[in-house]
């Protein structure tokens, strides 16, 4: 029971954390790019966009930072047996993340927020880039740690203690699961960030509140579409690579994601299936022939392993027990991830075409669709993580440590229940507050972060000092 609650807490707090992380990753770079554009051209419009999206970025950033603290603590608090087992290997990238990335990110974001009027313009610009680099670097370390759990490399099991022992840090950091996952997750984050910029801009254009902002938001909407399009290409390419790695290192996850029950030569890609976990088969399964085999192996006639056969192999290797993840959940998470993600990118591509050469959307529903693309992209990210993490079950470290043996033996059910309820409650309240603040600042528009000059047209270029953001 304590195990179940600890898993729920990990799921809830991690998914919640990842509602903010993709925006932080992507938007930091978008804001830094907008500020670079202002620095290069001196055009007021870019500064206005930098400050407007910078403010939204900060509202989101705060949530990402504080919900991240929980992650580092809960490995030790709820998963002490896991922590003792993996610490020698897993702790290193975590400590590096703090030392190399978090210090960079948090120090320079402070300098950026409060330093507008205290630093030379060029130095101030460097600060947002340092923060953006820190953010994107932190993602690499944590994903390397996560990739190690799915495909453990560069370690051995200590014969006396029975714990994992690091033998090559390079193997851990250059794990192909690590960089492949990194590309996929970061590109997925840029899709969210791109669609965030596009959705906010579309909303402002839809409301048409301030004439002076019209051209600015038409441009930023296109910026958002371009970011989404480029990131979409990276997501597709890295996703294809991920599928191949999954087939090789985590066949059970792939089989579960496809509801493929038996080993198959030239397996088809399932479009819609109704399965029966008890019987180990599907009642209904609509397939495109050969496509799964191609995704998994690069060959239409390749072999893909099925759930029942993998179960037999794992039983032979690790002893009796069920090695099945939650097949239904994996199957639908996989489809939701791809479906929602592709829909988001498709909206961006069509949007980019429709707004070419200064054009605007002819219909209001098209702006609304762009707004709807944002939650779709966020959900796609979440379903991707559900697939990755739930698909690793019943293992925490594939082939080495079971989730059931990872939990803290000394922590009581009451304690985990208190902690789970406290986080759920606090997080729910904060979600409402954060969303309302974002909406408020979007509605208020750019004038709150940079007032328009009274009784005079705004200068085309801004060269004087800009006031700092202060608390």
């Amino acid at each position: 029971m304590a195990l179940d609650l600890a898993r729920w807490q990990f799921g809830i707090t991690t998914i919640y954390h990842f509602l903010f992380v993709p925006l932080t990753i992507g938007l930091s770079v978008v804001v830094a790019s907008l500020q670079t554009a202002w620095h290069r051209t001196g055009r007021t419009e870019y500064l206005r966009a930098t400050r407007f999206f910078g403010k939204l970025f900060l509202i989101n950033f705060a949530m990402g930072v504080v919900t991240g603290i929980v992650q580092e603590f809960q490995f030790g608090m709820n998963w002490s047996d896991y922590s003792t087992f993996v610490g020698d290997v897993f702790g290193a990238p975590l400590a590096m993340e703090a030392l190399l990335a978090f210090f960079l990110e948090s120090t320079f974001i402070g300098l950026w927020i409060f330093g507008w009027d205290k630093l030379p313009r060029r130095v101030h610009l460097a600060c947002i880039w340092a923060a953006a680099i820190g953010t994107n670097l932190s993602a690499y370390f944590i994903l390397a740690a996560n990739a190690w759990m799915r495909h453990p490399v560069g370690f051995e099991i200590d014969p006396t203690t029975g714990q994992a022992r690091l033998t090559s840090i390079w193997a851990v950091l250059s794990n192909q699961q690590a960089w492949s996952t990194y590309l996929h997750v970061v590109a997925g984050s840029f899709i969210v960030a791109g669609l965030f910029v596009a959705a906010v801009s579309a909303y402002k254009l839809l409301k048409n509140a301030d004439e002076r902002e019209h051209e600015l938001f038409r441009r930023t909407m296109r910026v958002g579409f371009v970011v989404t399009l480029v990131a979409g290409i990276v997501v597709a390419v890295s996703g294809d690579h991920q599928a191949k790695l999954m087939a090789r290192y985590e066949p059970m996850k792939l089989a579960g994601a496809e509801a493929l029950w038996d080993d198959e030569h030239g397996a088809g890609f399932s479009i819609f299936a109704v399965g029966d976990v008890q019987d180990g088969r599907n009642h209904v399964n609509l397939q495109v022939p050969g496509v799964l085999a191609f995704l998994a192996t690069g060959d239409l006639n390749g072999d893909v392993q099925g759930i029942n056969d993998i179960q037999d192999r794992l039983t032979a290797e690790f002893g009796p027990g069920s090695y099945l993840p939650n097949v239904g959940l994996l199957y639908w998470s996989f489809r939701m991830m791809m479906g929602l993600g592709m829909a988001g990118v498709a909206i961006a591509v069509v949007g980019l075409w429709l707004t070419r050469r200064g054009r605007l959307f002819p219909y209001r529903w098209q702006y609304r669709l762009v707004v709807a693309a944002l939650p779709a992209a966020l959900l796609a990210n979440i379903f991707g993580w559900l697939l990755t993490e739930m698909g690793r079950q019943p293992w925490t470290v594939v082939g080495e440590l079971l989730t059931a043996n990872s939990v803290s033996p000394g922590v009581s059910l009451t304690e985990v229940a208190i902690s789970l309820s406290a986080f759920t409650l606090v997080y729910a309240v904060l979600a409402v507050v954060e969303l309302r603040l974002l909406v408020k600042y979007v509605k208020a528009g750019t004038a709150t972060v940079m007032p328009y000059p009274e009784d005079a047209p705004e200068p085309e270029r801004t060269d004087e000092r800009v006031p700092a953001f202060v608390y």
Partner: protein
Amino acid sequence: MDLPLIWFLAIAVLWTGYLVLEGFDFGVGTLLPVLSRDDTDRRVMINSIGPVWDGNEVWLITAVGATFAAFPAWYASMLSGFYLPLLLIVLALIGRGVAFEYRGKGDTERWRANWDKVIVAGSAIPAFLWGLLFANLVRGVAMGPDHVVTTTVFGLFNGYAVLGGLLTLGLFLLHGAVFLALKTDGPVRLRARAFAAWSGLAVLPLLVAFTGWTQARSGEPWTLVPALVSVVALALGAGLVRRGREGWAFSATTVAVAALAVLIFGSLFPDVLPSTTDPAFSLTVDNAASAPYTLTVMSWVAVVFLPLVLGYQAWSYWVFRRRVTRAHLGPVH
């Protein structure tokens, strides 16, 4: 020197940095209602730590991360053993961090007043609980050969630990007041100065009692030095701030906090988590450490990057070296 010892020292340094740095911003947060008369005063106080509190908190993240990497068994037993207090600390840090960022973004008095309460609670609770937990670390916990801590949350609130908690709370209040005297100008500066001078009278007996108790129960001969340094530095700090020597006073309270941390880690060594059940079950620097390879890798990373971090963090303090005043505070953004 052997690697586990180096990493014990490194972790002690990280915690010391954390307690010194976040110590004053916990103090500033807790003093919010005490040293302010209106919202502008409160904004002066919050903006004095605005650019740096987040960077200060990373010292905690790094200390905990380094413990995970260098002493996995210590990390696992300590974090699961101190479950509920750590849960409170994490919740407090969440609330506080969000409050700093969000308090100025609402329109009503009530919005700001509510976030101010979160800042006060979110600063005072960890200020007390860190002392409580470090005292328990020195004192030891009930722990069998499996290194599972069986001390209950009620057991953590023993006399020695509560004294430790009251001490860190008091010490951070004083440290924070001295910081405000140094970093602000106007009425807040004057009030902070007066508060710091008087609170010294209350904190000094706590410090003497705690360092004396610690020295008596688990000190080494040499730890008498940091114990005395801490007491003297605190007395000096309170005296100097009264005379308006704010820079020196802040150096003195920094030394007082740092020396207390040295005393704590000095008394702890060579254990990292002593067992009160049987000393044979204690986690020590040697039996909790990661293998030499991991420690070597981590050492290189620390040698290269820690000076860099210290450099740019010091630079950020330099950039924001000017006092925050009511007159120069821009509108909320």
